[in-house]
């Protein structure tokens, strides 16, 4: 029973929002490689969405291109989700390991990525009056991913419905805390850097004189 290849597992998980991840857990399957590939595709999708969207739906600012926001929107966001969820659910008796959270969450992103690419193609075919199709696809894709993400967290930790909701809220809080700490750390590093560079400048002037 259910001897599927990694790609088939992705299809199974995406097409069976309720049972798919449970099956995956039961068979102890899912590969990190596929998960990373999906996250990379998410990154590609975000970049494509930002740069290659149909011109009739809005103008891209193409004087400069900065890759950092796209990385933050995809890879960093996903990493924060995984780390945040892991750290919360370790305390909440979750059964999932970091690896499994990563794999299951990544699999859940597939409808969103597909939606982005489909809309990207549609944006070069439709005009503004027909934008409702794009909106519909976008809502379906995002909603599907949300349901899958919920189901993924539920099965990977073997939680009840209520506890999953609670865990997800806490995960989002944890992500914000991480963001806060990151900003704090950055500004601290900056302060230290400025301090050191000032001292260096001062000393270099003294030596010269």
């Amino acid at each position, binding site marked *: 029973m259910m001897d599927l290849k990694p790609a088939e597992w992705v299809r199974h998980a995406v097409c069976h929002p309720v049972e798919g991840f449970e099956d995956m857990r039961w068979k102890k399957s899912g590969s990190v490689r596929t998960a990373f590939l999906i996250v990379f595709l998410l990154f590609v999708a975000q970049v494509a969405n930002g740069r290659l969207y149909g*011109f*009739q*739906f*809005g103008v891209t600012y193409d004087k400069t291109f900065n890759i950092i926001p796209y990385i933050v929107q995809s890879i960093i966001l996903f990493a924060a989700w995984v780390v945040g969820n892991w750290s919360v659910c370790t305390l909440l008796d979750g059964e999932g390991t970091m690896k499994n959270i990563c794999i299951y969450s990544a699999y859940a992103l597939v409808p969103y990525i597909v939606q982005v690419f489909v809309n990207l193609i549609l944006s070069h075919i439709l*005009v503004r009056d027909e934008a409702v199709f794009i909106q519909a696809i976008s809502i379906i894709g995002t909603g599907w991913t949300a349901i899958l993400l919920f189901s993924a967290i539920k099965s990977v930790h073997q939680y009840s419905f209520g506890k999953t909701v609670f865990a997800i809220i806490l995960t989002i809080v944890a992500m914000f805390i991480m963001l806060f700490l990151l900003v704090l750390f950055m500004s601290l590093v900056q302060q230290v850097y400025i301090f050191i560079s000032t001292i260096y400048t001062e000393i270099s002037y003294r030596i010269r004189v």
Partner: protein
Amino acid sequence: MKKRFKKLLTPIFSFVLGLNFLTSLTASAGEPYDVYNYDRWGEAIPSQAGYIADRAVSGYDLGAGAFDNPNDIFYDHNDIFYIADTNNNRIVAVNSDFDEVVEIYDRFKMPDGSETTLKKPMGIFVSAENDYMYIADNENSRVLISDRDGNVISEITKPVSEVYDQKRTFLPQRVIADKAGNVYVVLNNITTDAAMFNPQGEFTGFYGANRVQPTAEIIGNYFTNLFISEEKKARRARNIPTGITSFDIDGDFIFTCTQSSTQTTDTVKKLNAAGNNIFANMDLSFGDYTPMYDTSQNKVLQPAICDIDIAEDGNINVLDFTTGRIFQYDEDCNLLFITGTIAKQVGGFDHVAALESKGENLYVVDSSKDTVTVFTETDFGKIVHKATRLHNDGYYEEALEPWYEVLKRDGNYRRAYIGVASALLRKGDYEGSMKYSELADSSRIYNKAFEGYRMNYLKKNFGFIALIVIVLSAVFVFVSKKLRKRRLAIEKAKQEEQDQLAILDRQIRILEEASVFVRGGQNDNDENEKEEKWI
């Protein structure tokens, strides 16, 4: 051979270089500032000048003695300029070429025969309807209405009305009159805006007040005011908008401007007869997008629009006091040109006070330099104005040629790309329109052009597309059938293999049974187990 070639090349190179140097010199000799315009993202980019400073005219040049703090200029229907020479207490009338004084008004004859003089006149207006001069006689606290020979017809003084706070003074700053003879007066110290008088000189109310800018502080004050007592409320600072600074009339509309370094709403308004602002909800911004940063004072300078002028062709010129720049907009408020700066040279200003236009010329009064600077339109400005006029009147296709000409001279000029894109769209050249709307960063025009392009494409290639769809679906059906067959075949083969294995097993069993039979003695249980396995 090689040497000769080199010898020949050197003078050519030097000549070209010299030519280059010469042209660059002549090109930069025009203005004491860099001419710029804004792109779609609100970033300043180099541009061609639409106006160039021709000369600065002082009172001496006109033969009227030096101006002293002139504050207003007006060009009337008889081709005469009037300058309100404030500190000299006179109005100077200058001919249309701006090189000769026609008349100096400093004494007026009252209806009862007595003489009267002006005291710090701040504004001057001449009505085309009745040929009267309206003078905002600031320190005499009156508006003087006189004919062009200096005979006073009537004067408007501080109104006695419940609406007009009697504790306040009446210090007219600017004055205009509409076609019906109603007089509008901008006052120094009134924030409810222009006082309005009927043709008989009776006070009828205020006109066109600015709105309060909804800053966070004011919204906060609103909520605080809900809870505190009346006495406390009376003692708190009230939220009052800045009063208007100047205005101009163009047909049925009055355009006002407000000089304020803090307020950004309602700095420029277009008011109809009912006093409603037509620009109110159009999300427009006048003056520089990004406030100028002055390094010498370490200050951010917000634009402060101190005068407005509507040209004959409907273009809106506004004068920014902070940067000394004239911003010219077309009637739909698209930025056309930015001219002027703060500088000592001709074309630069110190304290700009007023602005007037005549045909292709702009006249800017500087109240500190005591001069009037005359700007003339460049060739580039001429083409842009022509194209804009045609475009705004709806003659898109006729505007195409001038727009191409504009692009030839300045590839950064965004309005030209929009103009070309609109014209090509109207012509039905959808592909060209798409190209130019992309260059103009206008997704709205691109959308329309793309719709037409798609329609044409589908019409032209319908057969081909239908064929592709049919072929693809046929291939799909065929391949899926094939795949199913193959899968069935594989399953069948598997089944056969299993069947054969079963037969083989059975044969083995029979052989074993035979051997057991030969040897004799084998319990039944064992046999049963094996039977189960086969099933």
